[in-house]
């Protein structure tokens, strides 16, 4: 708590070295202080006893010397004897009392105090004394031949005691100062083995964390204590980090290399695909053209020599070549979509879809179609490819709603589980969800060709385009109850780089 108000007292502001030093000094100081105090007290107590004894002896001597004066009532002689106490510098005054406790003779160093009261001596005791004020007052009986004839009272000051006390304090202070100094010096010497390694470790740790340099190491000590262990462990840890870093870097480098190689592979594959497509464009079409051409020539020029059946076969040959031509075109279109670089930009879907609806007009002549195009979002996409997506999907809707009057084709957006989804729904013939997994397969069809024409590439193309944009497409339908196609595209502003 003190630390909060007085920052200088906050323990954590001090370094280890300072803490150790002050700890040492405090410990030695406290120990010394306690010891000295104990000794001082003992000494003083002892000295008191000594003083009492000394004074008692003096009283006894005075008593013995003044016995005859008492017996012969020689107050003058007694006073002389008392004045001998002048020699003792601590004695303030002395008095002799008669057996009846009357004052007999008095001597005082500074004059005054003529008839002090007799301090009683309890029966049975030879003396009594008391420490009070700044004095020691001792009263002793004077014996003569075993009988009490009077008493002597001596007053002494305690200046000797206080003198001693002062000297004692001086010595203690000096010793304390010296020992504190010694503690300080020794601390400084020993901190080399304790606080300095720790401080250096702390410095190293700071450098590492600030500059992220893992090549530095904390300086080791020659000791074998916990600090040395700590430093060793720390350095080892740094070593491990360095190793791990370089391993990581090596891993990353290898990955980079792998990526470069893979990209080269992919580019090679792409190029192969391109040349393959080019081949198809030229070489597959030529024989097809010939088949149709000569079949047609047969019909035209040999009509007289061939019968109805033959003509029928020839017609079917021609139809087949037409279909194959369509398939080739569709396949090439699909391949084209795969190869194409995506040119992504924010695109408003509302005008785009309306364009598609307009384009489909020639397919919808004479049909009763109710278009319900809702609010569509702006998305990040390649406008050309997405237009193709909507063209295929809406054209499908138009096709498969042919038996309906009116045909209802809707397009709009909705939120499904927090995700924005675009849907295209029709009330056409739908399909069996049992075959939903085939829906987007190339050349896969869920309806017979005589019921609904088509090559089965439209949805495959759509799926490829949507996937290229990082979106998803799926469908839900029921037989004779129409179909809904759902697709997701990244909102404008959050498309991922492909």
């Amino acid at each position, binding site marked *: 708590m003190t630390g909060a108000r007085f920052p200088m007292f906050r323990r954590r502001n001090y370094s280890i070295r300072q803490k150790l030093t002050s700890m040492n000094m405090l410990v030695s100081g406290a120990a010394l202080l306690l010891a000295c105090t104990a000794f001082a007290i003992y000494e003083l107590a002892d000295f008191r006893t000594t003083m009492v004894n000394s004074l008692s002896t003096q009283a006894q001597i005075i008593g013995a010397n003044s016995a005859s004066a008492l017996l012969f009532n020689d107050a003058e002689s007694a006073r002389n004897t008392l004045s001998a106490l002048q020699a003792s510098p601590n004695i303030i005054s002395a008095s002799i009392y008669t057996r009846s406790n009357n004052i007999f003779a008095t001597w005082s160093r500074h004059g005054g105090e003529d008839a002090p009261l007799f301090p009683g001596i309890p029966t049975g005791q030879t003396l009594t004394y008391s420490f009070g004020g700044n004095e020691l007052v001792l009263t002793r009986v004077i014996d003569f031949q075993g009988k009490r004839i009077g008493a002597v009272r001596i007053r002494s000051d305690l200046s000797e005691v206080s003198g001693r006390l002062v000297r004692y304090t001086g010595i203690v202070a000096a010793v304390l100062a010296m020992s504190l100094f010694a503690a300080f010096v020794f601390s400084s010497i020993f901190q080399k083995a304790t606080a300095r390694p720790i401080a250096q470790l702390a410095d190293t740790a700071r450098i590492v964390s600030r500059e992220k340099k893992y090549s530095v190491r904390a300086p080791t000590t020659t000791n074998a204590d916990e600090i040395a262990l700590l430093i060793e462990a720390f350095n080892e840890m740094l070593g491990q980090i360095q190793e791990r870093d370089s391993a990581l870097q090596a891993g990353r480098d290898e990955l980079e290399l792998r990526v470069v190689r893979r990209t080269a592979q992919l580019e090679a594959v792409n190029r192969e695909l391109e040349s393959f497509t*080019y081949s198809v*464009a*030229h*070489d597959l*079409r*030529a024989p*097809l*053209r*010939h088949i*149709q*051409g*000569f079949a*047609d*020539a047969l019909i*035209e020029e040999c009509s007289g020599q061939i019968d109805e059946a033959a003509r029928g076969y020839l017609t079917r040959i*021609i139809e087949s*070549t*037409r279909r*194959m*031509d369509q398939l080739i075109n569709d396949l090439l279109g699909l391949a084209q979509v795969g190869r194409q670089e995506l040119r992504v930009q924010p695109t408003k879907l509302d005008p785009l879809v309306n364009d598609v609806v307009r384009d489909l007009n020639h397919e919808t002549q004479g049909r009763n179609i109710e278009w319900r195009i809702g609010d569509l979002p702006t998305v990040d996409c390649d406008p050309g490819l997405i237009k193709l997506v909507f063209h295929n999907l809406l054209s499908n809707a138009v096709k498969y709603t042919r038996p309906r009057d009116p045909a209802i084709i809707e397009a709009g957006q909705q939120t499904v589980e927090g995700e924005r989804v675009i849907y295209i729904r029709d009330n056409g013939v739908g399909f069996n969800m049992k075959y939903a997994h085939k829906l987007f397969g190339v050349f896969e069809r869920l309806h017979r060709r005589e019921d609904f024409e088509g090559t089965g590439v439209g949805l495959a193309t759509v799926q490829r385009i949507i996937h290229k944009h990082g979106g998803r497409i799926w469908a839900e339908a029921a037989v004779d109850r129409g179909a809904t196609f759902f697709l997701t595209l990244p909102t404008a502003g959050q498309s991922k780089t492909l």
Partner: protein
Amino acid sequence: MSEAASILLVEDDPHDVELTLRAFHSENVQGRIEIARDGEEALDYLFCRGAFRSRTPDQQPALVLLDLKLPKVGGLQVLREVKASVECQSTPIVVMTSSGERRDVTESYRLGANGYIQKPVDVAEFRKAIRALAAYWLGVNLSPSRSRPGQVSAMPAPGAR
């Protein structure tokens, strides 16, 4: 053969040649059609050299129909050489080939083709194309070697040459 041909058809595939001639015939295209079977022959014809040394350069066809996939010298190379030459560069050349690839179209025009037709597989479509082709290049268009359109000689029987 004093009159220049109306059309030089450069095509290696014999089936395609026959079908093209059939189409010309059924559309009543007037004019003589010469066939070159590969790029080298086409160049020899147009530059009046090799087997066609006897031809004169002023007798350029009104139109050259050029396939791109040809043996010996390819269609694009023929185009490049003809359009780069001084004597023949004004001869109208329309590329007529199976491919509709963007890069073929771009390259052809870059080399100076006057037009590009992708040969349709469908017979009816092909006939329509031939009809339009003939109507324009032989009917309406004034070729560099003729003073008025449609100046041709009698048409040969189908399968000739």
